[in-house]
Structures are given as C-alpha cells and as structure tokens.
C-alpha cells in the first residue's frame, strides 16, 4: 500500500515537472518579447505596453536581455531601457548600468553615468562628459543626451553644453540646452544667450530660443521677441516655450497680452490650457477679463484652466458663478467648481463630487481625483469602490487618490498601497484579492 502511494506521488511529480518547466519557459519567452518590443520602432503601442509591464514587474530575467539588446536599439528604446534598469533594486541596477559605460554607445554611456553619478558615484561624471564632447552625434541623440543629465549641476558638463550653443545649432537643441543650463544654475548662460541673440543672420527660431532663455532668467527686454513668436501661430510655439515662461520671475506686458490672446483665439483646447497655466502665474490686471470670459468656454478643459488661473491670481471669483457651475448638468464643469470651492476651504461641492465619484460614467476618474483632494474620511470608501471599476483610468485615479489621501488622514501611520498587492493595471484576480485586504483594513480602522 505504502509502495503504491509512493509510486503515485512520483507519477504526480513527474507529471508536474514538465508543466513547471513549460511555465518557466513561457515566462522567459514573455520577458524576451517585452524586451524586444521595447526596441520596436514601428509599433508605438506595443513598445509603450512593454515598457509599462517591465517597469511594473522588473523581472530578473530582463536585465541580461536588456544589456544585450539595448546597444542595438534606437534612441527612444535606449531611453526606455535605461529607465527600466534604473528601477531595479540598487545593487542590481548599479551592476547593470556599469556594464553600459562603454564609449561605443554614447547615450547609454551618458545615461548610465548620469544615474550612477546621482547615486553618489562621483567618478561616473567622466562617462557623462565624454559623449557631450563628441561632434558626430545626430540631433535626436544630442537632445536625448540632454534629457539624461536633467538638472545635474557640474561645471564641466555645463561648459560642454554651452559649447553646443552656436548659431548653426538647431533651434530645438538650443532650447533644450538653454533649459538644462538654467536648471543647472549656470552663471554664464545669460551672457551666452545674449551674445548668441546678437549674432547677425541668426535664424528667427534660434533667436526665439535665446529670448526664451533670457526671459526665464528675468531679462524682460527680450519679451517682445517671444510675444511676436507666440502671436505667429495657433499654439505650437507656446507649447515649446511654456517651460521657460513658467520659470520667468515676470513677463512683460506685451508677452502677457500675447499669451492671453492665444488662450482666447486658439481652436485647440490643450494650447489654450497651456496658455492659461502661464497666465495663472503671470496674468496682470489686463488679462483678468480674458480669464473671466474663458470661464464660459464650451471646452471644459479650458473653463477649468481659466478657473484655476483666476484663483491663482486672486481673481475673487464670485460665489454665485461657482454655485452656478456646481449645479451644471455638465459633470466636468461641476467638478471644476467643486474643486475651486475646496481650494477656498468651502466644502459645498463635496456631496456632488461624492455622487459623481460613486457613479459609473465618463467623469468618474476626474471625480475620484477631485474627491481625493477633499481630505475627508468619507472619501475613502468611495475611492476603494473606484479600485474595482472596470476602467483602468478610473482605477488609477482611485489608486493615486488613496496614496495621497491616507497619509493625510492618518499622519501617524505609514502606508504603501502596493503592499496589499493592488495595482490598477494588475490582473483582475490579483486586484480583487488585494481590494479585499484594503477593505478589511478600512473596516478595522475607519473612525466611527
């Protein structure tokens, strides 16, 4: 009898063995496919999905595959691969990145060097500098290099970037280089921008890049050039310059006027929104009427941005206007009003937000985002319900909201929502099990 049982057990094990092996093989194949998709130049969606999956899972098997395949990938693939490697546990990431410090692959060398430098390996800056000294790099590679060294403050690096500021440089490269130098607090940037701007025959777009840099550094006299550039199109120029304008201590009246005109005139709501963000920081008395008019924009994005800009400028939006918006049948408008009232410590919109956040619909994600900004216990169960929604955007909004809200309501506790196993993008069964744990915690800790 005993022998028969043992035989059965052996048989069972032998039956399992190939299956486990097959599973491992399938998992390895999936990781290999994800890494390969990262380098897929033609299928943007596949590359993006692969990137998200690798970032979420960080599978150990991917490290060797990435090291092997990254040198063959294009600029975007290499940038994504570096970001994935950076997310591995410290020792794994450092060891992998050190293997990329090779002069044959300038972006990987500079990118890995920059990460190691930020992790405290000061010598790694040499690997960052080498690619910047090369003259043979294409525009997209140079711009990608600048993206890798974001805000690193190093005098030799700044000097190398300044060397790229020449009249024949592409305007887009000039913009990126100027912006990096501003972030690095480089003292010579102002004079270099001034010199370059004064170069006879400099292309107009390059002159705009110089002016943007000077305005960001507080040189008001350059704002006329930017005003003309902003007026010249329907928003693409502003979308490029916005980062400079948001860093500027002040904008000249002509530039403020040009941005306000664009906010009203553009047919693209996203550009209007960008202009309104700038006005939220810089609008003067003459631009306030524009913001007020845009409160009634047919685009909810524009109307919301106008509301936020007005509040930031101390525009004193009347309670009647906000009450009218709160009662609107347009959920987006009502949410914007509720959020605006909350910013003024008026919780009159909470009930409407709770209602919208509890109801399936196109605005549920935004309602959950707005709800999480009301620091009230009543928001928690609604956000927990949001974690079970069928739409990943709604689940993500609920997840982000809870991450922000819980530490504020419970300042004596530490939280990591992922410790429950929950991820808005995770598999349905995993999410469901994790949600049970979260609900159990809430049930035990909700203040009665």
């Amino acid at each position: 009898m005993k022998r028969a049982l043992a035989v059965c057990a052996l048989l069972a094990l032998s039956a399992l063995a190939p299956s486990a092996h097959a599973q491992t093989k399938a998992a390895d194949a999936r990781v290999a496919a994800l890494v390969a998709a990262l380098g897929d130049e033609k299928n943007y969606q596949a590359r993006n999905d692969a990137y998200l999956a690798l970032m979420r899972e960080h599978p150990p098997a991917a490290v060797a595959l990435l090291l092997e395949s990254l040198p063959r990938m294009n600029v975007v693939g290499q940038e994504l691969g570096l970001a994935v490697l950076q997310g591995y546990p410290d020792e794994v990431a450092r060891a992998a990145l050190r293997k990329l410090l090779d002069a044959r692959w300038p972006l990987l060398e500079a990118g890995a060097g920059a990460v190691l430098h930020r992790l405290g390996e000061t010598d790694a800056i040499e690997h960052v500098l080498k690619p910047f000294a090369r003259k043979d790099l294409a525009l997209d590679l140079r711009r990608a290099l600048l993206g890798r060294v974001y805000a690193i403050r190093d005098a030799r690096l700044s000097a190398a970037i300044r060397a790229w500021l020449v009249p024949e440089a592409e305007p887009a490269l000039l913009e990126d280089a100027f912006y990096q130098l501003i972030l690095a607090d480089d003292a010579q940037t102002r004079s270099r921008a001034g010199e370059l701007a004064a170069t006879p025959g400099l292309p107009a777009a390059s002159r705009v890049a110089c002016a943007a840099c000077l305005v960001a550094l507080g040189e008001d006299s350059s704002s006329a050039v930017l005003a003309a550039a902003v007026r010249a199109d329907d928003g693409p120029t502003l979308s490029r310059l916005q980062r400079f304008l948001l860093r500027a201590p002040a904008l000249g009246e002509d530039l403020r006027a040009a941005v306000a005109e664009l906010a009203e005139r553009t047919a693209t709501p996203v550009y209007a929104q960008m202009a309104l963000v700038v006005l939220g920081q810089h609008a003067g008395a003459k631009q306030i009427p524009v913001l007020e008019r845009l409160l009634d924009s047919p685009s909810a994005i524009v109307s919301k941005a106008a509301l936020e800009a007005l509040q930031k400028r101390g525009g004193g939006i009347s309670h009647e206007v906000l009450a009218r918006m709160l009662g609107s049948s347009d959920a987006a408008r009502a949410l914007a009003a509720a959020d605006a009232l909350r910013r003024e410590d008026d919780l009159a919109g909470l009930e409407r937000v709770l209602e919208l956040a509890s109801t399936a619909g196109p605005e549920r994600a935004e309602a959950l985002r707005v709800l999480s900004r009301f620091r009230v216990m009543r928001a928690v169960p609604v956000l927990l319900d949001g974690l079970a929604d069928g739409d990943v955007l709604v689940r993500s909004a609920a997840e982000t909201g809870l991450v922000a809200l819980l530490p504020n309501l419970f300042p004596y506790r530490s939280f990591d929502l992922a410790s429950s196993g929950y991820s808005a993008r995770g598999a349905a069964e995993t999410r469901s099990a994790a949600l049970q744990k979260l609900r159990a915690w809430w049930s035990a800790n909700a203040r009665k």
Partner: protein
Amino acid sequence: MRLSARLAALLALAPLALAQEPRTAADVTEEWRGLARVFDRVLPLEDATSSEPRTVLLLVDATPSLAASGFADALAAALERHAKSLGQLKLGVARTGVEKPLLAPSDDAHAIVEAVRGALAAPEDRIVDVYADVRTLCAQLAPRGGEHAVLLATLENGDAEDDLEATAARLAGTKTKLFVLASEAYVADCYWAQRTYQDHPRETQLTGGDSAAIDMPWGWLFQLSTSNELTPSGFACYGLNRVAAASGGRVFVYAPPNAGAHSCAIWGTCLFCSGDHVAEDEVYGRALLAPLAPSVAPRGEVLESLADDPCFRATTVAWRAALQSGLVRGTPPRAGHATSVDTSAAGKATLLLGNALDRNADRAEALAKDCERILSALDAELKRADPSKGSARARAIAEYTRVMLQLTKVNLVTYAGWCQEIAPRWFSKEAQAVQPPELPAVRGDARNVVIGYTSRSLCHGVKPFFEVELPGGERLKKELGELDRLLGAYTARYAHTPYAVAVHRQGIATFHQSLPGTYVEPKRPKSKSGNENGPQTGGTRPPRSGGGSSGGSGPATGGGG
C-alpha cells in the same frame, strides 16, 4: 481784519498740520504702484516758485535683488519723462558702504543712469549700515541751496541700526527729506534676535521688524517656524520708517512681481491641500492694515507707550508667565535690553522631549494646565482693559497670544496622547503587526529611533483637523473645539491683516520618526503680502554673507526603549 482772517486761517490749519505729522508706519507708507511712481513722487520740485534747483542724491544699496528689480531702467525712463525739469533738478549717485560718491549732483541724464547701472553691475549681498551713509550724504547736501532729498534704495538692508535718532536729527538739521524704496518687513521680526551670532557692522544692532520692539510673543513650544519671522507686515522695517517719517519723507514698499505663490506651511507640511490653497483672507486690506500699523515714534517713546498700553501690559504678564513655564522661548521687550532667546525657557522645552514617555506625558499635562491658567488670566485682564486706552496693534497681539496659548494647549494634549497611545506601540519590543496597506511606523531598531515633530498648518482653520486621526482622544476633540471657537472669532476680526497670517503660519504638531542627517536651515521666504496679485508669500531670502546656519528645526529626542 485781514490780519485776523489770516490768523484764523492759520489757526484752522494748525490742527491739520498736527494731524499730518506721521504717527504710524501707515502715515509714511506709499501704496506700491511701481517704480515709475517712486521717481515721479521724488524727483519734481516741491516748491514750484523756488529759483534754486532741487538736489536729490540716489543712495543705491547695490544688492542682487535691487539689480534685478529694473531700478536703473525705471530711472532712465523717469529722467526721460522729467527731462524738462532737469535744469531745476540735479541728481547725484552714491553707493552704500562706499564713502566717495559715484557721481556729484548733475543734470546729465546719461551720466546719472550710467552711474546707477555701474553700481548695480557688481551687486553684493552683505549687511550694511545705511543710516551712517544717509548721515554722510546729509553733510554733503547741507552747503547746497534749494530743496534737498535723499532717495535710499535698499531692498535688503535697514535692519543694521547704529543711531536712528542721530540720523533723524541730521536729516532735520540739514532740511533733507529721506525717501526710501524698501522691502516689506515682517511683523515684530525676531529673526536676528534668534541669531545673535550673525556678523554685523561695528556699532550696529540687527533689528529689522516693522516695530520698534519685538512686541509679539515668539518661539512657541512645538512650532516648527516662528510667525514673527514669516508674516509680512505690509510696512518697511521700523528703522527706515522712523528716519523717513522724522524727515517728512515717504517710504515705498517694493512689491516684486510674482514673489511666489501662497504656501500654507512654509517649513512644515499641509495636511489639507497640495499647494493649491486659495487663502483669500491673507490678501491684506489697506484700510484694515492702517489702524494696526506700528508707531514711528522714537524707540524710547514707543517702549514707554507700550508700558502704558493696557492690552500690551496684559500680554506682557502672560508672556512672562509663558516664558517661565517654557511655553515660549523669546523674551518680552524691556527698555535698555535686547530681546533674545531665554535659554532657561528653551531648556525646559527640551526637557519635555526626553526619553521617559510617562514623565513627558505628565509634564505635558502640567504645562497644558499652565496654558489654561495663563489664558484665563489674560482673558480676565483683557476684559478689564479699556480699549480706548490701548492701540489696535496691542489688542491684536493680545488676541494672537490668546489663540497661541490655546494652540499650545492643543499641542500639549496631543503630545501627551502620543506619549500614552502611540509611542508605546512604536517602541514595543514586540514586532508591530500591521495589515496592508499599512507599514510599520518605525523603521530600523526602535531603540535608536529619533523623534521629531512637524507643524500642520492652521491655514485651513481648525475644522479639517476633526477628520484626522490624532492622539489625545475626546480631550483633544474638546480642546480643538475651543481652538476652533477662538480662531473663528479671531479670524473674523483679523482676516486680511498680518495677524490672520501669523496664526496660519503656526500649526498643530505631529510627531514622527526623523531620519538622522545634517540639518540645513531652510531659506526664509521673502516678505511679500499680496495686495495686487492675490495671496503671496513666496520667494526666498538668500542668506547674506555670514548668514545663519542653524536653529529652527523641530527638536529631536531619542526614542523610547
């Protein structure tokens, strides 16, 4: 008949003249309407019938902030506007801390602007005694005929005082009017009083607040920041106001464009927003500000009048009692004494944060009783005080003190609650059993844990705290309710003034595990109340040469064990 009519007219004018003598900072402060307005007010001849030219000396305190303000460009534009007056107007240029003038009085607009640009081309950020420079310029102006004026442009100095009354006398003696372009000061600023190690020019004392004395209690227990160092007053510093007032001049309080966004908790964190709070009651109303303005009388007179002020007397009694208990660490003003940190009071506060949790809870309870006692005595005293005999500012400070006493009581109650309810759990030798999504509150070996605190800003009021899980149970709820009541009444009265802001910059303490590391003092925000651009307090004050490097953090204690 004609004589008696003129006499009558003179008599009628006399009270008017008396009424016009500046008594408070509000009387000498010009509403900010841009740099152009400054020059338009300062440059023209006051007496149009005068045959002699007016001489104005520009005293430029060439700091990076002034260089970035567009001062030189605004001057160039103003000289263009006033080109016709230049025959009757001569401008000289001098730089603070530099004995020799950069340009003798001249009507050459180009030379004037270039001299100013030259000074601003190499700005310095150091502490300078501007009053000594003003006296020197007065001596240079004395032999000249016609009207005299000095325009002192200083956005970072004025807080290093040598002798204000000698400066006022020199200005009066040489019939020189002093106009000042200055930054906004903080209410009863105690920044330098807390940093006595700061180097400063010989024979000067660092002051800097809007008032002649630090008349608002400071250094409250369990507060991460000091309101006196962070609350824009709406006025320039006392020293500059005093000398400008004595000379019949004016003070222009510079408002930089986009000084920064409102921040609920400048050094701590806000539990109730993510930096998007619109604190409308922080936008100052000039009409509300004026009655609360500090005096510009000589310092000795101000201290005497404070001693006679029933509200301030009541505050001082409460302040001394709070100091004795260790509830505050800054000393009250006293003639002939510099205000400073009371080491004994500060030491008492440190004792509270020792390792023995039970004893700390008992100490906190005892101190909460002290708060109650002091608050009750202050209330009684204020009820007896005749409001007509005191200043509005002293009343505001007394009411601020009441709120702070109740807030400190709340903090002591919640601290006692933390000692009893939370700390034992954190430091238990048993592993902390927590369910996801919670993590253990203490990481690493509990025996080596360092405890710090942070202040949760009162910017959103008290009510939101009822939503937050805080230690202290029903007792805390009751004290929070009382704080809500007091703060509600206080805010109703002091919204749109610095006194509302002063309370917002204080908060309810929470206690947490600190990470060991080097403490770096955060930069102090640049003072800027927001009349024009909505609530603003932002920008940072760069430390000046030899500037501070310590202090101001939440104290730390070893964990239990």
